[in-house]
């Protein structure tokens, strides 16, 4: 839609006044500066991670390129066994957690989009209410504890099994499918679960992709749930390991002189290792991420 409009505007051969030219020049400068302000701290980490640890220690200011490029920092990162277990733990939560998230969200969205069923209104109200009123961390902790989930990986998956926002996004997409499609399938004898998984899900696959991404990124980046519920270091996800390495390093590095020497560079490399999957996927998936905001905006 927006592209069409752009084409129309372009084909008209607009002439700009001096004021508009100045405004445009200033605008380009502002946008460039902002982009640099966002990009430079990220590139700093990336280039620092590939730089010689001694150079990183001596260096002042941002890295604009890798100084004496080396992979040494990464070899240290992978020697740390907790990084590897953290990676595996996070992968487990991302895969199993996201699968459960998406399954429940699809079911919820499908049922809530069936406006002809009488109880749907009540159920919708009950669900939307939880977006505006929550029990809070302490009662949630007690619920997780009373279910015996403390120090299990399920404590990272079950308490957030559905995100109301994502489910509403999914429902909005399903509500846009013409009623005649599921109805005719039902007349042909299809059951609800068949309609959901064989008709609605394929029809809404772009939105399914959106919520898969949202859930997966949220799992990848989360640390607080693990911080609350897990006792056993072997179960820690990557972000919690990262937090230990990045924030409590002063005490750790005192112990090992050589490590202290390179700690800054190793920190950078650790961040790169932990963030790379997201950064690598992001440019290709960006349009899906953006689409989610737009669908969600249709009905807040």
């Amino acid at each position, binding site marked *: *839609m927006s592209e069409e409009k752009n084409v129309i505007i372009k084909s008209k051969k607009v002439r700009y006044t001096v004021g508009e030219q100045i405004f*445009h020049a200033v605008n380009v400068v502002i946008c460039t500066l902002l982009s640099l302000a966002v990009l430079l701290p990220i590139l700093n980490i990336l280039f620092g991670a590939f730089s010689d640890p001694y150079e990183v220690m001596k260096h002042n200011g941002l890295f604009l390129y890798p100084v004496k490029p080396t992979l040494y920092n990464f070899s240290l990162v992978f020697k740390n066994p907790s990084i590897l277990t953290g990676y595996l733990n996070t992968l487990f939560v991302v895969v199993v957690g996201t699968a459960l998230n998406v399954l429940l969200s699809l*079911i919820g969205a499908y049922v809530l989009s069936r406006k002809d069923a009488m109880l749907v209104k009540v159920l919708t109200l*009950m669900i939307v209410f939880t977006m505006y009123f929550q029990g809070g961390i302490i009662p949630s902790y007690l619920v997780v504890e009373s279910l015996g989930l403390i120090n299990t990986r399920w404590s990272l998956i079950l308490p957030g099994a559905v995100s109301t926002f994502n489910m509403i996004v999914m429902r909005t997409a399903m509500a846009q499918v013409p009623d005649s499609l599921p109805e005719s399938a039902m007349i042909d004898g299809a059951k609800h679960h068949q309609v959901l998984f064989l008709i609605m899900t394929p029809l809404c696959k772009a939105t399914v992709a959106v919520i898969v991404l949202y859930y997966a990124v949220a799992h990848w980046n989360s*640390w607080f749930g693990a911080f609350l519920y897990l006792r056993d270091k072997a179960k820690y996800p990557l972000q919690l390991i990262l*937090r230990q390495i990045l924030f409590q390093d002063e005490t750790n590095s005192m112990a090992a002189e050589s490590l202290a020497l390179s700690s800054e560079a190793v920190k950078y490399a650790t961040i790169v290792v932990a963030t790379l999957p997201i950064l690598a996927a992001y440019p290709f998936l960006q349009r899906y991420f*953006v689409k989610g905001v737009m669908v969600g905006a249709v009905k807040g």
Partner: protein
Amino acid sequence: MKALKSNQSTGEVYIREPLSSRLRKDWKKNKTLYLLFLPVLAYYIVFQYGPMAGLFIAFQNYKPIKGVFGSKWVGLKNFKDFFESYYFWRVLRNTIRISVTNLIFSFPMPIILALLINELRTKHFKKAVQTITYLPHFISLVVIMSMLADLTSRNGAITQFLTHFGFTPTTMLQEQKYFLPLYIISGIWQNIGWNSIIYLSAIVGIDAELYEAAKIDGAGKMRQLFSVTLPCLLPTIIIMFILQMGKMFNVGHEKILLMYNPLTYEVADVINTYVYSQGLVNMNWSYSAAVGMFNSIVSFLLVWGTNKFSKKLSGSSLW
């Protein structure tokens, strides 16, 4: 159901069946649908309404060994203790200070960025600015806060840069006066792009004829901005504002937990971090649940109130 529909379309008056029999019919027709919903319902009952029900420990002196049913009831004592404590004013002041500063500085930024991006003429440049500014939204808070700590340490890049302007190098996160600016700026850095999407899509949706009409009436770019773009954006801005108001008392604990330290507790401890430290560090379960409940209720009233107010004032509302 068919009969009812045909009655409606012909405009005939018909008598509604009693609710109970309509419910029975609905259940018969949609039973499988409701059964399908059971796992989702179970999640909401256990993990959303369960904690809400669990809030009654706020009126107890909850002891884990005695359980929720064996613990002593103390009425409103926990709330009273909170309102009378030194920390009440401290966390309230910090929460409101952070929220209001956020509302003033962070809230308009994505709107401005959306307007700027919309005016960019080169498609590729526009795309590049969007891609870059959306990016930090996907980086974890742990990483962003460690980047912040690194950049603002005694010889971090930002600190070093500021020394050119007569700034005395210091570890900025250990100084109370820098906490709020760093909190706000890092928040803008992370979210300005992402939050601009919603405004940008609203701008793109504005009818091009409105601009044509404004141009014919002799309106320049500035005039178009104030007479067309902003009025058309207003409903979106109001919705976002209501949501933001609702969060006024809900300054998230995750970022602050990663950012503060004993030297900055005085200005950084907010209601949510206080709930966390009282409940899960000091094990004052009931007291902390009471503080959390106070927060939930005030937040809910704030969304509800702002929503009502804006409905009256402008017709835009969440529900």
